[in-house]
């Protein structure tokens, strides 16, 4: 319960300007911690999530359907063929710099590929994976 005002504060302070991947990770970690005490984000779990086959969507059964098996690579939209810049911060420094953009794409892609909203813990793990992968 004590974590909620902290999350709100963080979100408010992060809303207006460009952020670092660490700050974006912190938003999700705080949110996950408020649901599950002692939560620690894990790049390894984020990596596994990236590769998991959800099989909800025929054309995009997993993240890797469009983003290839490495977030360091450029991907390609499975339906339209449009190229997609790498997700990993190491390969694309523009990633994880805008909290609203990150939320927007979690919102869309989780619904479409995972078949539900992603949990704060999953988002924290995924963001950790993308900021650390080399």
């Amino acid at each position, binding site marked *: 319960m004590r974590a909620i005002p902290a999350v709100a504060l963080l979100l408010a302070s992060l809303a207006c300007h460009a952020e670092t991947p660490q700050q974006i990770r912190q938003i999700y970690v705080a949110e996950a911690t408020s649901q599950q005490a002692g939560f620690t984000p894990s790049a390894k779990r984020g990596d596994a999530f990236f590769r998991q086959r959800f099989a909800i969507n025929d054309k995009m059964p997993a993240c890797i359907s469009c983003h290839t098996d490495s977030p360091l690579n450029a991907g390609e939209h499975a339906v*339209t063929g449009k190229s997609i810049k790498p997700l990993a911060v190491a390969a694309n420094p523009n990633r994880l710099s805008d909290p609203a953009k990150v939320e927007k794409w979690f919102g*869309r892609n989780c*619904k479409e590929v995972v078949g539900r909203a992603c949990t704060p813990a999953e988002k924290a793990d995924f963001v950790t994976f993308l900021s650390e992968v080399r």
Partner: protein
Amino acid sequence: MKRLLLIALLGSAFPALADRLPMPANAPASFTTECSSCHIAYQPALLQAADWRKLMAGLGDHFGSDATVDQKTGQEIGAFLERHAGSASRVGNAGNPPRITQTARFIRKHDEIPAKYWRDPRVKSAANCEACHPDAAKGSYSEHDISIRELRE
């Protein structure tokens, strides 16, 4: 001699002009960012205004994807698309949901393309203009620039 040269120049310029659909210079930033993440930002002239309106009203299920935008952005993009939309008589109806590939203009322009090319892995989807028209995003759909060699001319 000069006149001949002028005629030759004009003659070579016109076919190209017919296949140019430049992006209006005043495209709002929201249009570019929202509409070009999954496909190229299609030029407003590719659909008539009524079809853009229909399309913008159905972004929650945009060909199987959630492409919703907030209300302010939606209004901004919608107004831009409708202001620069193609004329109904030139483009034709796009069906429901509206598809650029269902307009009479698109069908007429592509009627010589054998079906196997639409299934070619290099093409993937008729929505992938750039597979054949490398400068589609810049509004160039000239037949001379087709990137799949077998389809040139």
